[in-house]
């Protein structure tokens, strides 16, 4: 640019050099400011907010340029008032315009390259989040059809085919209904009545497996049967009660499912003999999933609590209760 100016306007070399140095200094300062402002938006900021920040920083930079321009003009008119022969250099405004466009262009390119980088990063993190979600869903599905239970049940049924063909037929039916329920969308709510139906199918199968080691007692007040509960929630608690309780006891024990209504809350208690220490032997993923789903589907006023007293482990679901008036 210096060479261009010298050629076009016959201006002395050193003056042009100074002017260009000033300009490049301004460019560097401006770029640095831009970077600072963009970084202040945070590493995770989207490409849109990069542009917004660039625009915001553009306003003070532009007003700075305008101030410098008006100061130069002001100084010129002061000089002119002293000496009428003083003239504005040729292409004064053109040069200013040219510098402004050059700087604007440079800033635009810089911001755009940053924005592209950001948008790539944002895309990658979005894909990663999606992948994590899908994996979590898969884990939920896997946890709902416990492979141990599934293959043990199939083994039991195979043994029953010879011993009691009629009971084998029943078992196949229970298993089918249970699998169908497990394959339903996990985000759905359904009346407790239906959920208990699934739990009964499950427990019937486990009774075939554990025989006299498992006895079941279900007592839910009729008023609670229409309470909406997340699909497979009570089922998971019952499965835990068998896996960590009944199955670890040589003589088995009683698995009870009891419901209570207390004012505007209701609770479902799943109890089994055992210790909480044994229950912690798993990865706790099932319970964590159950809690997340309950929170999402029923709301933060709901909860699942585990407790152990006198060799009995209880899992208690608490939910808001609204009496349905006809």
């Amino acid at each position, binding site marked *: 640019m210096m060479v261009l100016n010298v050629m076009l306007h016959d201006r002395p070399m050193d003056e042009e050099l100074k002017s260009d140095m000033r300009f490049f200094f301004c460019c560097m300062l401006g770029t640095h400011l831009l970077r600072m402002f963009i970084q202040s938006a945070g590493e995770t900021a989207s490409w849109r907010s990069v542009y917004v920040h660039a625009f915001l920083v553009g306003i003070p930079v532009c007003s700075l340029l305008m101030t410098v321009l008006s100061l130069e003009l002001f100084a010129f008119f002061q000089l002119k008032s002293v000496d009428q022969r003083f003239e504005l250099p040729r292409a004064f405004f053109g040069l200013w315009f040219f510098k402004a466009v050059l700087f604007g262009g440079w800033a635009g390119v810089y911001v755009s390259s940053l924005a592209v980088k950001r948008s790539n990063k944002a895309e990658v993190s979005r894909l990663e989040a999606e992948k994590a979600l899908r994996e979590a869903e898969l884990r939920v599905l896997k946890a709902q059809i416990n*492979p*141990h*239970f*599934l*293959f*043990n049940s*199939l*083994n*039991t049924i*195979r*043994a*029953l085919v*010879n*011993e009691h063909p009629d009971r084998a037929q029943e078992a196949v039916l229970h298993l089918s209904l249970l699998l169908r329920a497990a394959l339903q969308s996990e985000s759905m709510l359904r009346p407790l009545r239906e959920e208990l139906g699934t739990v009964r199918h499950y427990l019937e199968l486990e009774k*075939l*497996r*554990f*025989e006299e080691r498992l006895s079941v007692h279900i007592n839910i007040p009729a008023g609670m049967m229409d309470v909406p509960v997340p699909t497979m929630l009570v089922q998971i608690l019952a499965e835990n009660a068998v896996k960590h309780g009944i*199955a*670890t*006891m*040589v003589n088995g024990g009683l698995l009870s499912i009891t419901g209570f209504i207390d004012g505007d809350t209701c609770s479902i208690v799943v109890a089994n003999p055992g210790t909480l220490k044994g229950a912690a032997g798993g990865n706790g993923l099932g319970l964590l999933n159950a809690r997340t789903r309950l929170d999402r589907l029923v709301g933060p006023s709901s909860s699942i609590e585990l407790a152990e007293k006198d060799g009995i482990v209880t899992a208690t679901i608490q939910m808001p209760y609204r009496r349905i008036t006809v």
Partner: protein
Amino acid sequence: MIRTLIVDDERLARVELRRLLDAFPEIQVVGEAAHVTEAAEAIRALNPDLVFLDVQMPGGTGFDLLEKMEGALPEVVFVTAFDEHALRAFEFNALDYLLKPIDPARLAEAVQRAKDGIVSRRDEEEKNPAPPTSKLSAEDRVFLRDGDRCWLLPLREIVLVESDGNYSIVRFAGNSAMLPRSLSSLEERMDPTIFFRANRSQLINIHKVKKVDLWFSGSLKVTMEGDLAVELSRRQAATFRDRLSL
């Protein structure tokens, strides 16, 4: 005839396995057990050649049972409903396992494998008849566990055993595992013609000695396989010399 024990906490699972085993005339099911304690007693009382062992049982897993066993271990085939990490962790492919519901073809393979194992060990014992004591022979195996890894290791593979309080550290082929038994109790059960008490805290396998060096004032320094160095006290060094020179 292969004397066989079935260990599973579910009656129907035992029934099913028994039915499948009917197809093998060489298998004689001598007993059943429903949990770890019962199984340990049955193994002691019946001394079976082969055990079909469920992994998940009340009162402890199949691994706990193997760890508990004092005498020689029978051939073991694990039976489980699900491909467990713990079973795949077995080193040297030492252990067979079947998945429920059991595939008869896989069962036939497992039985054949167990039979081969039993026959080769019987041959070995005939060649080198063990003294008629309760001592374990070189071909007998111990169950070892180190974190997630498990081994069923013939005693002859052990390089040395070190005392660590009430525990013992077994070193073999570049690995080591902890046993919940004191060194003296282990020494009592091992064949003294193979295992030699080098000093207060170490028991070495004579067949795994690579090099013997003279050490200070009549003591010996023994280098074992895997370059483990063991010092023999003067008194033990004399016994060791006698033993080696026959």
